[in-house]
């Protein structure tokens, strides 16, 4: 019996964005079909995983997450090196968490100096996150841009309140920016239009649509990512044709369920495996929705997701 495979015709394509510099450039984006829909389109660059590194020793992580990094947790340079050397990280995502005025309020110049050291220590593309505090991020990320001139860092989040100041500086020092909006396709589009008006080049923009954890609002993020992809590929919405980054590890590892031990919650099984799967499944969902870069923490979760990406990039067998 013959039947016709109902195919979708894609009129749009995601822009290809080179991250990092020199020989170590990694390109993301370029898809001309829905995620892993290899039977009807091309995915020239499979999704990539960036491993998290924190600027100061984390205080509130469960041991299960800290354990792989216990020997390097207070030293972001050693931490980043370990991610690359031991765990084969494709990219590093430096979380400047201590710059939060509600936390240690690390000053901008200090944060920039840490970033510089990390960027000198590793060759892979470096993503740098502030803390979503509009004013402080402006200070911090501007300083980071200056200090790391020419390294093509990926910096963010740039929001409605600070995209101008940070965007202009990023252009000047040739970095890529993450346009961040709170789970809303229209706001995401609007911010990309504004960045365009500011003359941020099209190959320097990544969309950060905000990602929650499994069980904690993931569905909203999942659908926003799917909608952004549909608009980009089918409705040719040019200002949404950018790769998408999902920054969820910090959300997953602060949930109650990854922190409960097995004796406290026997029905939730092994604490470490549970945390690893909570993170890996959050990744799996956003991958299937359309994320291009996943910001992840636990090496075992990362391995699971890498395998999953490999499996889903094999066409039509079995």
């Amino acid at each position, binding site marked *: 019996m013959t039947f016709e495979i109902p195919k979708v015709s894609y009129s749009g394509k995601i822009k290809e964005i080179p991250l990092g510099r020199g020989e170590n450039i990694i390109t993301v984006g370029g898809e001309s079909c829905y995620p892993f829909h290899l039977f009807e389109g091309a995915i020239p660059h499979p999704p990539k995983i960036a491993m998290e590194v924190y600027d100061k020793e984390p205080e509130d992580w469960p041991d299960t997450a800290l354990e792989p990094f216990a020997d390097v947790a207070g030293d972001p340079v050693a931490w980043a090196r370990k991610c690359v050397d031991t765990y084969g990280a494709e990219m590093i995502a430096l979380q400047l968490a201590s710059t939060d005025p509600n936390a240690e309020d690390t000053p901008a110049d200090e944060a920039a100096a840490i970033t510089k050291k990390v960027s000198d220590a590793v060759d892979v593309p470096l993503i740098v996150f502030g803390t979503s505090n509009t004013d402080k991020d402006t200070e911090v990320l501007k300083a980071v841009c200056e200090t790391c001139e020419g390294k093509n860092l990926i910096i963010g989040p740039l929001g409605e309140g600070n995209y101008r100041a940070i965007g202009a500086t990023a252009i000047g020092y040739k970095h890529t920016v993450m346009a961040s909006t709170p789970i809303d396709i229209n706001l995401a589009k609007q911010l990309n239009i504004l960045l365009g008006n500011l003359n941020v080049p099209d190959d320097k923009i990544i969309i950060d649509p905000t990602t929650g954890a499994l069980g904690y609002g993931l*569905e909203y993020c999942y659908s926003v990512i799917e909608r952004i992809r549909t608009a980009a590929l089918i409705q040719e919405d040019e200002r949404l044709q950018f790769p998408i980054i999902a920054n969820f590890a910090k959300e997953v590892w602060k949930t109650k369920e990854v922190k409960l031990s097995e004796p406290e*919650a026997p029905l939730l*099984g092994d604490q470490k495996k549970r945390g690893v799967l909570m993170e890996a499944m959050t990744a*799996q969902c956003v991958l299937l929705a359309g994320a291009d870069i996943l910001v992840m923490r636990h090496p075992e979760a990362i391995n699971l997701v890498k395998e999953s990406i490999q499996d889903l990039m094999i066409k*039509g067998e*079995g």
Partner: protein
Amino acid sequence: MGLSGIEIFKKLPKTNCGKCGVPTCLAFAMKLATGKAELDACPDLSEDVKEELGEASAPPVRTVVIGTGERAVKLGGETVLFRHEKRFENPPAFTLFLSDKMDESEISAKLTKFKETSYERVGLVLRPAMVAVKGEKDASGFMALVEKVCNDTDAALVLMNEDADALSQAAKTCSNRKPLIYAATMENVETLGNLAMELSCPLAVKGNSLEELAELSEKLIKMGVKDLILDSGARTAGKSLEDQIIIRRSALMKKFKPFGFPTIVFPCEMTDDPMKEAMIACQMVAKYGSIIVLSEIEGHSIFPLLLASMNIFTDPQRPMAVEQKIYEIGATDENSPVLITGNFSLTYFIVSGEVDASRVPSYLLIKDTEGLSVLTAWAAGKFGADTIAPFIKKCGIEEKVKHRKLVIPGYLATISGELEEELPDWEILIGPREASHLPAYLKELSA
């Protein structure tokens, strides 16, 4: 699908007897047209009309029920490809795989885990739904295992055996449980098709390719089998994704009848690594698996899978909300701190999780903000001093604590003055902006 309310109305008895639960035939027709009522609710339809309307109003993916009573599992009924278009209807059934090749202690241990695994979240009960029993040895061993499982659990069953006789025999003994018979193939399609009709049980169809699956399914539809479950035979993650998408699209976009049924998938046959198996299962949750068969039910993997399924199958239109009330976290007493926030379920989960983590027993007041987050609710006029004050007075917290200190979210700092005016007995404390800073805040507060 397709027929308008008026067109449906023309076929109804027009007696307005009200037995269907709505006052008039017209109202019933309108509900049918929008998929909000089931045809069977009207007892006075002729068989012909039923068939005609049933055909026209059926969703492109047929709704199939497996099992009976409280543990019956409803699958399919899907009408869209993406969850933002409209709600996905029936969440997947996570199904424990058992085989007569396993030894008794393994089977018992797995069944016990299956039975005790159940979680409550936002008022929903989340648990694995079915048990699949596979015969891989002799007929009597298979039969014995089926009986054991039947006695042990009320859950819906999948009976799997390549030996059509053994399968028939087992299906006959428990047909009152309405098990899924697995599976009709090229070799046995007629025998099993007839069996399924005779016993009124749903039947799985397994092809070695999508083409073969379509052929088999077509044949069974012609024979008159109504409730089918599809297995495309794919046993890798990549091929499964492709097949599931093609099956769902064929049903929705082409109205291709042979693929208009729920599916069954086997992560348990795709890897020996339970962690990887869980990841493949998660893929199937998002992309169209209906029955997801797993080699084990372990809390660390089934809990996240159930969360994924809850997330993906939540109605995208409705903001998730929790009930407005006083939530007591830990062993509270009259001196415990009192915090307030909105009823967006995400807010509630995150805040209550952090309060719990702080180990400072506290009262968390959840005010109805129509499921909106704190800032959005405040902007919409649903979380200002004028609405918080009456809630504090009425909710009963004043009887529970001796002190009069209320912690409000850091984002609402601007309303604290106003709130103190509205609540002269209370001292308003400004909590942190981020829930993650709550443990430190509460520890200091109670020190």
